[in-house]
């Protein structure tokens, strides 16, 4: 027990000092108000939280959560197969495979986004190609809409899904699958009943990382979405910059964090029920 405390202590102290204290500042500011010129004055008020309850902001929040859920789903559909492939590569090629997937994300995100603009814009790669082939007569509006935003988000967050899932798949005991096929299970059944449940920790970690990260994104809606949508990331960004309303921005951030935390806890509880079942099956198999 002592060993556990010792191991977790450095990280805990780090987070308490470099994260906890700044968070206390944010919480304090969320109960403050602003002077006409944007300074923060600490007179206790709930006005910022009340303001969040206005329909305009609730709608933005719901839109953001919906976008984040879609992004998570799409990233999962792309990330799981990719992670599976890498995990099934000959051992010598697995790490290079992972790094190959990561390399694009070490290149500056802005220039990659601008490269997407070159590909998707009305005189861009895709439209020029399709026009030349005669498949369309007018360029397709591939940019500056919600689909482009989704594409941008998936593109930005894919590694966060791939890596945790790879980590789970890689440790899968192949003998379980062999046993299943010996017992006459179809490959898809084996996947559904054995592989997928056993890789749930990775899927959970990946989904949560992607979901949370997409909640706060503001660059993608600006570059790929033409800044035409107001997601909560943009809203909070605005509060600290052009609106100079740090108290409202802080309150929004706290609410965002709190609500997302609740969603995560619910998600984990649901998973635990699933895993409980799997563990029992595993014990029986032994």
């Amino acid at each position, binding site marked *: 027990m002592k060993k556990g405390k010792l191991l977790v202590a450095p990280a805990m102290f780090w987070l308490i000092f470099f994260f906890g204290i700044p968070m206390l500042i944010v919480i304090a500011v969320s109960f403050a108000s602003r002077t*006409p*010129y*944007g*300074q923060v004055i600490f007179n206790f008020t709930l006005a910022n939280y009340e303001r969040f309850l206005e329909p*305009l*902001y609730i*709608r*933005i929040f719901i*839109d953001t959560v919906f976008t984040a859920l879609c992004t998570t789903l799409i990233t999962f559909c792309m990330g799981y197969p990719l992670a599976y492939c890498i995990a099934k590569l000959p051992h010598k090629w697995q790490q290079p495979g992972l790094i190959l997937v990561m390399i694009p994300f070490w290149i500056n995100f802005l220039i990659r986004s*601008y490269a997407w*603009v070159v590909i998707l*814009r*009305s*005189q861009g790669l895709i439209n020029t190609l399709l026009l030349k082939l005669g498949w369309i007569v007018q360029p397709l*509006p591939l*940019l*500056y809409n919600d689909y482009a935003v989704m594409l941008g988000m998936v593109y930005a967050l894919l590694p966060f899904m791939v890596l945790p899932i790879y980590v789970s798949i890689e440790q899968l005991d192949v003998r379980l699958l062999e046993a299943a096929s010996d017992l006459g299970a179809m490959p898809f059944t084996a996947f559904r009943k054995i592989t997928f449940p056993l890789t749930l920790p990775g899927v959970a970690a990946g989904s949560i990382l992607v979901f949370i990260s997409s909640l706060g994104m503001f660059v993608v809606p*600006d*570059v790929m979405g*033409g*800044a*035409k*949508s*107001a997601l909560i990331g*943009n*809203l909070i960004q*605005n*509060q*600290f*910059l*052009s*609106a*100079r*309303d740090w108290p409202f921005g802080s309150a929004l951030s706290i609410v965002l964090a709190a609500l997302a935390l609740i969603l995560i806890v619910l998600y984990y509880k649901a998973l635990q029920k699933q895993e409980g079942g799997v563990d029992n099956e595993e014990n029986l198999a032994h």
Partner: protein
Amino acid sequence: MTKKRIILALLGIFTVAMLVLGCGGGTSKQTPSSVAKNEKQVLNLFSWADNFSPEVLAEFEKKYNCKINYDVFANNEELLAKIQAGGAQYDLIQPSDYMVSTMVKLNLLEKLDKSKIPNMKNIVKTLQNPSYDPTGDYSVVYTWGMTGIVYNKKYVEDMPTSWADLWNPAYKGRVILLNDNREVFGMALKKNGFSNNSTDKEQLDKAFSDLKTLAPSVLAYDTDTIKQKFIAEEAWIGTMWSGDASFTYKDNKDIGFVIPKEGTLIWADTFAIPKGAKNKELAEKFINFMYEPKISAQNYEYIGYNDPNEKAKEFHSQEFLKDPMLKVAVDDVNQGEWLKDIGDGITLYDRYWTELKTIK
């Protein structure tokens, strides 16, 4: 297994070494006068990217035997947030017009010692005491320009004359607006004959309902890559700064730029010194240096924006003086209204702006 441990150990030593070096690098900048190397003073400059001719900077470094640290930011609000939250480690900053008045109200700027900046009088009279800094005690105009309508002559046959031309249904889906609530609402207010600093709810409501009808036509709100959108012909018409119009024109000769008849906003980037700056005198020397006529000409030819230095005219190239885009701003300078800090009004603007962005 042992190989990995050796690698980890090496990494550990490397990390510690870097930390020591890194920490050393981080703290030594705080005491520029004690840098034993060559007793050089350091000028910490915080500005927009590519805002100075590198040759001019090098000349200053040589003349005053100092080193310039040129750090960059991309918008005024980030500058303000950083200075507000963290205090000044910079000696010279470049806030825009309204930001100067905000910073003065928030007591974030030092008063300039005008006796150390005699070249200030070289600046053209109309820009010497702008409404955001009437005494000229806190800022000096560096670059200036106006917002106007930019259009592609290939697709927009009639030259636009009014802001209302943006609403022309023929341009549906090809309109770009700047991604800035003061600029966009200022434009809509001007279209209706109001001041672009208005906080009157009725006037803002009218501006907002106009913008609501424009919103479906907007291809994108963009301040940063608007030039590229016009060069690549993604957009046909929009709002743009005069200096940017000049750049766009260089890469696409079909571009035209006009100041609409209702008037527009005039903006300026300035020099200012944050409170607590460690090298105030050196900063003032820098400002003075920048307005020496020959240096001005060299500098503004490089960055391509309007030159406020009257005395520099004789040193400029004909090409620069005749640049059609820059010339538009100079000709119509009286049509411009400076943006003011509107205090509490900004919350109202932000609310309208958020609502505007949620329109599908």
